[in-house]
Structures are given as C-alpha cells and as structure tokens.
C-alpha cells in the first residue's frame, strides 16, 4: 500500500484510517478538505482537480517519508481526489497515528501544508456567475 495516492473517484475513509491503527499508537489526527460553496469571496458551484499523476504520487510519497523523519509518528497516509467535485465533496484526506497527540497533530498539519505547496495538482473552479478559472496561487515567499 502506497502512503500517498491520487484517486479519480470518491473513496472511503474508514479502511484508510483502519490501516493506521497500531497497538502502540494512542493518538490519531486527521484532516479533510471539503469543496466549499465559496472561495475568495466568490460563490462557487464546484470544481475540477487535475494532477500530473506520476509526479504527484512520487512527490506525495516523498512528503510522507519526510514526515516520518520529522515527527515521532507510527503511520501516515494521504489521498487526494482528481476529477469533477461538487460542493461538500471530499477533496483530500490526511491521517496520522502516533504514540502521542503532539506528533499526530503536527505531522497531519505538515503533510497537508506540504501537499498543498508541492504536489502537482491544480484546481479549476466554476463560479455561480458562470465563469471558471484555474487557480495558480503564489506560494508564501514567492515574489
């Protein structure tokens, strides 16, 4: 089982979470990104995610590997959707198990932040006013 996957259809969280259970892990932190009905003040109808799948999965796996080096965690995984999504749909899930909650929370936050910053996935938003746009945001620190 790879610890970072791109999913082109809705996926179940429960079996992903179950794989992170460990007898030595007392803490589990998870994050989910859901499609919102607005972004930057504009009403949104839905969106499409597109990925460069081969590189996204390689870069995502690197992020999870780095999380193991940075934090005292037992296990971690991340799945990111691509394709058409409606408001309320699950876009991304991160789960982390650890002996203690400090590491679980910190690693979960770090994995979602790095995923958003580094993994080649792009969001195409459809707005209530009828237009649509690719989001190519500047990263913190980018000129």
């Amino acid at each position: 089982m790879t610890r970072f996957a791109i999913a082109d259809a809705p996926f179940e969280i429960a079996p992903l979470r179950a794989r992170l259970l460990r007898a030595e892990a007392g803490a589990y932190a998870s994050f989910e990104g859901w499609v919102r009905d607005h972004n930057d003040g504009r009403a949104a109808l839905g969106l499409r995610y597109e990925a460069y799948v081969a590189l996204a999965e390689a870069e995502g796996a690197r992020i999870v590997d780095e999380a193991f080096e940075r934090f005292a965690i037992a296990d971690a995984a991340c799945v990111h959707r691509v394709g058409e999504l409606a408001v309320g749909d699950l876009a991304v899930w991160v789960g982390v198990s650890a002996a203690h909650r400090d590491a679980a929370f910190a690693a979960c936050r770090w994995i979602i932040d790095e995923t958003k910053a580094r993994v080649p996935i792009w969001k195409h938003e459809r707005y209530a006013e009828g237009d649509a746009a690719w989001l190519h945001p500047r990263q913190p620190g980018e000129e």
Partner: protein
Amino acid sequence: MTAVTVLYFASLRDAAGVDRETVAHDGDLRALYAALRERHGFALPVERLRVAIDGAFARWDDVPGEGAEVAFIPPVSGG
C-alpha cells in the same frame, strides 16, 4: 534537433489547446519554455513554474534527451 514530448496541465493546456505535443528543440528547458511560450502565448513567466523530465523534477538548465517527456508545472492548487 532533439524530439521531446511536452505535457501541458491546467492553464497551460487550455492555452496550448492540447495536453501534449512533440516538438523538435535544441538547448535547455528554459529555452524550450521560452519558445513554447512564444508559440502558445502562455501567461505564466518561467519564474512561476517548475519543470520535470520523465516524471521527476528537473532544473531549468537541464537539457532533455531524445524522446524525453518534459512537463511544465504551473503553480499548484491542490488541497
């Protein structure tokens, strides 16, 4: 001239009108993007992109070999 396959994503694909094309080119990846930007009218300057060869991140002064698969990576917006 070297033949390389170029992959386009997101706004670059919309501007190019195709998701991949094979182009003949000499020189490094920076020069390749400059040529393709002029051809397709890409809005994004090279400073805002990353670049990959054969599924791995590369440097702009790398020179792609015959048959290489080059991808220009616009600023990402997953999550």
